[in-house]
């Protein structure tokens, strides 16, 4: 790595925003995986893409677009969802279909009205090095809010994940906590969608969390491990993408590999490593 790496504006911004996104995604992700809500998490990430596209169209802040649309999706899922997992997944899927329908429309209008032809790629696959520096503070505020909410939700959510009926008998308001979880999830994927793109926010949400749950013995251990893997994978991904500009492995003499590719590769490798570690331990 060359000297002055951190001094570069876009890289510094990418590191800061992806730190917030990865940390929040990993923490929320552990409870999402525990509750079998991986599809809802992925769906909210995709839906937030509609918000990103709308933000391009109306010229508002992208983060506001991503997060607002994800929150709307979370509310719709909470309203439509049933108790059985299959039924809940169906409701998530239907809300996802509607959200993606809107994304299709906004991206079409982006392309025809403002000539932003590459909008589909940007919104869906992210452009980490193009995040404006003004985004760091709002992203940090979102992250702090999400982490504070998770601190309050951790105990009831863990109870619900183990046994909803038991949780209800202990005085946990299952529906309310479930909706609060979806709302924090929306915040997390909105942040992640900003950095790795709407469709790959799932990688930061599910991969580190599943790896943490595989390798750690306790819930706090799983959360800590997931956070470490998430942040490590995003920073490693940014570092590798930055270095890759000097490689000559690209197709047709192109240089620079996308950040999202490296982040996902590192997350998947960590997940496989966690499985191996768990099996060796017996």
């Amino acid at each position, binding site marked *: 790595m060359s000297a002055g790496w951190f001094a570069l504006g876009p890289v510094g911004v990418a590191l800061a925003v992806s730190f917030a996104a990865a940390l929040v995604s990993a923490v929320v992700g552990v409870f999402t995986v525990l509750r079998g809500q991986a599809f809802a998490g992925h769906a909210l990430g995709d839906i937030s893409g509609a918000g990103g596209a709308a933000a391009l169209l109306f010229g508002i802040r992208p983060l506001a677009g991503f997060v607002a649309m994800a929150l709307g999706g979370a509310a719709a899922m909470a309203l439509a969802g049933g108790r059985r997992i299959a039924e809940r997944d169906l409701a998530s*899927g239907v*809300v996802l279909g*509607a959200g993606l*329908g809107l994304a299709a429309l906004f991206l079409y209008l982006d392309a025809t009205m403002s000539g932003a032809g590459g909008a589909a790629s940007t919104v869906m696959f992210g452009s980490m090095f193009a995040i404006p520096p003004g985004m760091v503070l709002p992203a940090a505020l979102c992250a702090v809010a999400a982490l504070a909410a998770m601190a309050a939700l951790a105990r009831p959510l863990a109870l619900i994940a183990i046994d909803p009926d038991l949780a209800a008998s202990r005085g946990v308001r299952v529906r309310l906590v479930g909706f609060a979880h979806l709302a924090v999830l929306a915040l997390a994927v909105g942040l992640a969608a900003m950095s790795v793109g709407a469709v790959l926010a799932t990688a930061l949400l599910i991969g580190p969390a599943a790896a943490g749950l595989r390798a750690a013995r306790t819930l706090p251990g799983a959360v800590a491990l997931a956070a470490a893997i998430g942040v490590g994978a995003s920073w490693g991904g940014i570092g590798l993408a930055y270095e890759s500009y000097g490689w000559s492995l690209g197709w047709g003499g192109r240089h620079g590999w996308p950040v*999202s590719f490296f982040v*996902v590769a590192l997350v998947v490798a960590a997940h496989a490593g966690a499985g191996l570690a768990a099996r060796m331990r017996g």
Partner: protein
Amino acid sequence: MFAAFMLDTWVAGLIVAITAGVVGWFVVLRGASFAAHALPLGTFPGAAAAVLLGIAPSAGVAGFGLAGVVAIWVLGRRGRPEVATALTLVMLLATGALLLSWTDRYAAQVYALLFGQVLGVSRASLGGMALAGAGAVALVLAGFRPLLLGAIAPDLAAARGARPAAWEFGFLAAIALAAAVAVPVVGALLTFALMVGPASCGRAVSARPELALAASVAIALALMAGSIALSYITSWPVGCFAGLGGAGCYALGRALL
């Protein structure tokens, strides 16, 4: 809208709707919404790879679809199925992001592949589509009883000697085939909306599986025809109408139940 050049689109829409209606009914029954979303979306990088390599897009789509089926099935046997699906999807998409970064003549095609387009099929590809669609429908209908039993009473199915793991693989393969049929028209992101929307409404029509299945196909046909017609009129992408219409179907089904 009924001009000669639209004929191929209408035929393609017919094939897509029948395939999606039949396979989608099993998707809803088995609670496999995530796999039905992940497999079509995961085939999208295959098309990008095909463009890069200069081979037929359908070959790339088939290759990535098969890779997705195997990955979901293998990973899902070891751990949580939804985590397996999520990881498979992000692996396929990350490969797609890499391939897309290597080509710059692609922005319009990316958009069409993700969200669908009315004129996405040529006459030459109709035969292959019909074949793949027939394969998907034949696969789930051949497994009608084991798939039904496995969804309603998995323990009973195992006790009766049905091989749930083998049928799960066959079912995932059927979803991938249906995806290969539908993605060029409806788009990779919204193909699953055409599967789950009509089917979730169809099950409200009748409690008898055969009738519900028939209703699901009929609703899928109506949704597909409506989406193509509206897309032709407004020139908005097909997927836009399939997604919003699919949600409308679901709401209608919930109101009927």
